[in-house]
């Protein structure tokens, strides 16, 4: 089925730097990653509270470390699509879907999604949408975590002490670097090795590396 539309391998190899314009497949894939991530957010919304309560009992504010699960959509979208706006778009679609399926936070989920997507997007933009190595993914996760931490202490915990706020933001950044950043990068690698990403630079990079390792 795919052979009828994909270009010959030789043409793909000599293709210049990919453009930053969105193809139809980019929009569809970004939307679908968003929708799938939204469902995962929804599952996490039902699961997270014992973990959050446990961390909070250890040190109030530490619970933000596991908030990184809600941030992976933006980083993942940015890593796969590699176009401007991909991180914001994916995180926002994911937030919209989890809000529509039903969350305890209702429409506030959308605001959170926008802010968190912006955090990851800014990091990809800083690297001019040209660098998608593991450390950039970790930084993008940290950017999303910083955005989430600041958003939450302003909106949810304005009356709490400075100690709590500091711990909350630092834990959010560290947790998000690992969960949203590093984990997303590992997911992209796992997805690429299933062959599902072959129409994307992200997938071709991994399959080319594996082919040269075999050779």
């Amino acid at each position: 089925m795919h052979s009828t539309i994909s270009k010959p391998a030789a043409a793909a190899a000599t293709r210049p730097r990919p453009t930053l314009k969105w193809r139809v497949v980019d929009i569809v894939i970004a939307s679908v990653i968003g929708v799938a991530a939204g469902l995962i957010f929804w599952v996490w919304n039902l699961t997270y509270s014992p973990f959050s309560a446990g961390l909070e009992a250890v040190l109030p504010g530490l619970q933000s470390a596991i908030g990184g699960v809600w941030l992976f959509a933006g980083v993942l979208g940015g890593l796969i699509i590699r176009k401007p706006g991909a991180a914001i778009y994916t995180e926002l679609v994911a937030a919209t879907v989890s809000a529509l399926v039903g969350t305890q936070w209702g429409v506030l989920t959308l605001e959170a999604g926008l802010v968190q997507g912006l955090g990851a997007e800014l990091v990809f933009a800083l690297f001019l949408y040209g660098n998608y190595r593991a450390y950039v993914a970790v930084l993008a996760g940290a950017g999303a975590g910083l955005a989430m931490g600041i958003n939450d202490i302003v909106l949810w915990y304005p009356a709490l002490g400075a100690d709590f706020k500091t711990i909350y933001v630092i834990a959010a950044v560290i947790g998000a670097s690992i969960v949203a950043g590093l984990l997303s990068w590992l997911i992209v690698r796992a997805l690429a090795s299933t062959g599902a990403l072959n129409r994307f630079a992200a997938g071709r990079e991994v399959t080319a590396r594996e082919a040269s390792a075999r050779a």
Partner: protein
Amino acid sequence: MTTAPGPDPFAAAPPPRGRFLHALNPLAKIAGPLPAIVAVLFAHTWALPALLATGSLILVLVGARLSGRALLGLLVVLPLATAVLTLSFAFWSDGGRASATPLLVELGPVRLHEGALLAGGATALRLAAILLLSLVGGLSTTGPDLARSLVQQLRVPYRVGYTALAAYRFVPRFGHELDVIRQAHRVRGMAPGRGPLPALRRRAGYLVPLLAGALRHAERVALAMDSRAFGAHPTRTERHLVPWRRRDTVFVLLAWLATALAIALAIAPADLIAQKV
């Protein structure tokens, strides 16, 4: 896919009679409450959130057709949740600033000061007000109409608007796919056992299969759209129009006026400013 004769499932539903919110443009229901939401974000007293929450609650109750579940949520769950949040924010809040205010309750080590209760109430009411203000549009708008008005009035590229809409229609499909993955994992005995840790391991295992399946599905959809020349032309015909009428402008202006009035009312009496925590 067969085309069964029958009513068009994607036709616009006629708006319910007498419920004026359903007859407005989705963007009007976002633009109207938006300044109020921004004002609430910066409010420090309980007066402004309380005024705006009450106002939007009345607007939703009068203007939108509500299901029994929505009514229960608005009239029972939301006030209860606000009360619980008030108390929990009050107990967590910064003791240093509030301990100068009168002591209300003392139960062993737990002390509740008036200032802490007011600060907790302000935070909880802010969240309730933001929720209610966004429900003005949320309870009376369908996703497809929102996407249409984003494309028709806000000039969002239709390639993005309609693709997002198509992706949202995948939700039931992914729910089904998640069920299949879950069953397949259970049959193969992956991460058995009870308690939070095996549950987390099971749920983490759904991630890559769900995403890989989603990507493959999306690729087929993109191929189908490309083969129908989706996105080839700068404009596109619409299945039905979502117009911006005079009543939308009137609604937005009235909402802004009401917001300004609420802000004036909330900051005017000096004793309310003195309660600023």
